[in-house]
């Protein structure tokens, strides 16, 4: 009995000891590696790229490490953007925080508010880095009051994707995609048959934001939160109602298909011929062309009749630098970021993933030209972005409660399929977003 007791206690002590010694060992290792490398700067890079995207990213990191003797970048996948951000929360501002953090576009305000980040503007100024080589419409999103906070990295925009074969079968010109709402409604009516719907939009807030921005509409006040703190949502404006009216009218006509909230479901519906036109991210274009059993066309977002097209907001993510990292590490991180922005790296990244090149010089590279010859549709996505006018509407909204605001918009979209009035549905979403903004303002003490 006594022996058993002692044995158990012994095991327990061992377990506890093992736990703590593990961590101290790990620390030793870390110290050893950063010390022994003798001046080799370590850059910890957290990202949210999974699947093929991760493979492409790791390729870039390996090439960088091979060509830079004094820097070692370690890329670690941390789950989705949301998950990665949650993990960052627990270590932000400490030594364990990553030097570089990839965060999605709607997390921009959130990252700024954490106070644990070093705007890359510092290094741009120090090195006189020429930011004009970047695609202005992309870098604009991540610059606030003229200061570049994070380094744009993977960017995408929404496009209209359509089934060319279905267009032909319906007697429409497959080379002429609908550009306005009335053209869209007409085409959708012709495309709708017993087992095919004309058009669909994923129930996802991003598409609504884009359809509002393309008309020049704002999402929140304070010029989309770009000039001062946004205090109220304004997307129940005429532009927002236009979008909701369109969905409402098309759904009532039976030409609009409710594809739910799941990207894969919507893509499956398109590939199986259930829907003939839908909105997707430009990053999904290439695999859609590869995997569809019919000819796929790509076009610009539609606008209401007689409305001037303003262009699109970029989605995707950017890279943030931690302020807690040591000077040498930050310098190394900046070098890595600079490397990522070079034309040939961006060209490969664009070809491998379908994300935009943040450096338009990449489009002159041979790999890109070859790719575009093979997939002329990819060029459409780039053109749409190039033609975008730089306004606060297309710069995108800057609020920290973005994920919550999107949920409210999605609820409102879903209520349309239950016969809700477009204006009322939007008003409710705005009201709920305002509440979230108010709660958040209280938190940040403003």
């Amino acid at each position: 009995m006594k022996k058993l007791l002692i044995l158990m206690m012994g095991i327990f002590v061992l377990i506890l000891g093992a736990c703590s010694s593990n961590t101290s060992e790990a620390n030793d290792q870390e110290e050893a590696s950063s010390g022994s490398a003798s001046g080799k700067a370590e850059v910890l890079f957290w990202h949210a790229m999974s699947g093929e995207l991760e493979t492409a990213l790791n390729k870039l990191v390996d090439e960088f490490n091979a060509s830079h003797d004094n820097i070692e970048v370690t890329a670690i996948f941390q789950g989705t953007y949301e998950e990665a951000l949650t993990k960052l929360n627990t270590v932000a501002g400490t030594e364990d925080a990553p030097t570089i953090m990839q965060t999605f576009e709607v997390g921009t305000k959130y990252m700024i508010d954490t106070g644990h980040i070093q705007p890359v503007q510092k290094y741009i100024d120090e090195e006189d880095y020429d930011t004009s080589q970047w695609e202005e419409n992309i870098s604009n999103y991540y610059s606030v009051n003229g200061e570049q906070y994070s380094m744009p990295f993977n960017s995408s925009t929404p496009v209209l994707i359509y089934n060319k074969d279905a267009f032909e079968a319906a007697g429409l010109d497959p080379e002429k995609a609908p550009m306005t709402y009335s053209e869209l409604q007409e085409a959708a009516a012709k495309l709708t048959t017993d087992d095919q719907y004309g058009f669909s939009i994923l129930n996802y807030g991003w598409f609504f934001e884009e359809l509002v921005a393309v008309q020049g509409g704002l999402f929140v006040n304070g010029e989309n939160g770009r000039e001062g703190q946004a205090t109220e949502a304004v997307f129940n404006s005429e532009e927002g109602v236009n979008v909701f009216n369109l969905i409402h009218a098309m759904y009532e006509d039976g030409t609009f298909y409710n594809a739910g909230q799941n990207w894969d479901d919507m893509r499956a519906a398109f590939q199986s011929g259930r829907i003939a036109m839908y909105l997707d991210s430009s990053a999904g274009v290439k695999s859609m062309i590869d995997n569809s059993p019919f000819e796929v066309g790509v076009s610009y977002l539609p606008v209401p009749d007689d409305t001037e097209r303003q262009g699109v907001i970029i989605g995707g993510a950017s890279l943030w630098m931690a302020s807690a990292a040591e000077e040498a590490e930050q310098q190394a991180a900046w070098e890595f970021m600079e490397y990522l922005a070079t034309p040939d790296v961006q060209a490969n990244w664009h070809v491998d993933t379908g994300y935009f090149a943040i450096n338009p010089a990449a489009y002159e590279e041979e790999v890109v030209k070859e790719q575009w010859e093979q997939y002329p549709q990819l060029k459409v996505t780039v053109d749409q972005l190039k033609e975008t006018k730089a306004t606060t509407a297309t710069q995108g909204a800057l609020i920290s409660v973005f994920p919550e605001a999107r949920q409210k918009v999605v609820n409102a979209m879903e209520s349309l399929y239950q016969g809700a009035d477009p204006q009322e549905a939007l008003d409710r979403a705005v009201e709920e977003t305002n509440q979230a903004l108010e709660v958040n303002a209280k938190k940040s003490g403003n």
Partner: protein
Amino acid sequence: MNLAQREPSPFKTYDEPERRRWMSSPFLAGMLFLLPSLVLFGVFLFYPMMRTIYLSLYLIDTQGEPLVFVGVENFINLFQSSSFQTSAKATGLFVLYTVPIGLILALVLALLANEKVKGIGFFRTMFSSTMGMSVAASSVIWMFMYNPSIGIMNRLLSGIGMSEVQWLLDPQFALMSVAAATIWMNTGFTFLILLGGLQNIDQQLYESARVAGVSDWYKLRKITLPMLSPTLFFVTVVSLINSFQTFGQIDILTKGGPMESTNVIVYSIYKDAFINYNVGSASAQAVLLFFCILIVTVLQFKLTERKVHYQ
């Protein structure tokens, strides 16, 4: 009081009286044995629970640090929010949809599988096989079945000439669809426990019943169910708690949509804490859920335990 005086002490090799008294105190020895589990529970259950209650009384910044003590304001906000009311309703309905049907289904299967016929092992394995499936894997399978454009459910419906249903996209059907998937997932576990309970029933009782020549229905009501009642009670409590805490299938199948019709409280907590960074509100919901489950479980013990027949 002192065990050592009445029985030969297990620790008699120690001579020092001090040590001996300490080691042989049954309370301390007991605590020592409990120490490992107490530490684990403390670190992973009690501390987080206390922390949740603490956080629910504060205004929390987006990084999860408490800022100002606000008392019950988080709770008041919740009770006033229509979103929370929808969540509470969805949770209640979900429990109602899943627990009774799941239990009855598992009981029927267990009664069937309790018969001693050739090849019964195959059926027992089949009926309990859903236990071997993770929630994630089975949710993905159900997602494909419910898919409105390529799923089997709609093919079956159109096969018998009915119009198609958007299972997970129609607020009227979404919660029921998730509930159906959940019942399927949970049946394996409930079935296995109930079957174990059935096998433990003394065969003599059935033999006496046979001698008395009573009907099968009578045997079920007067022998099987009373003798099974401790097991039934256990699975009811466990299923109910499980059902209140459903998360995985909601996350994969509907993400709380459409129109929050499947936004059960645990999912709402997750969304508030990890997507919207409203840790205060999420903690308050967690505390409410805790007390809700506590009350339901206590009520269950109070109301039904009298009817449970322990041998």
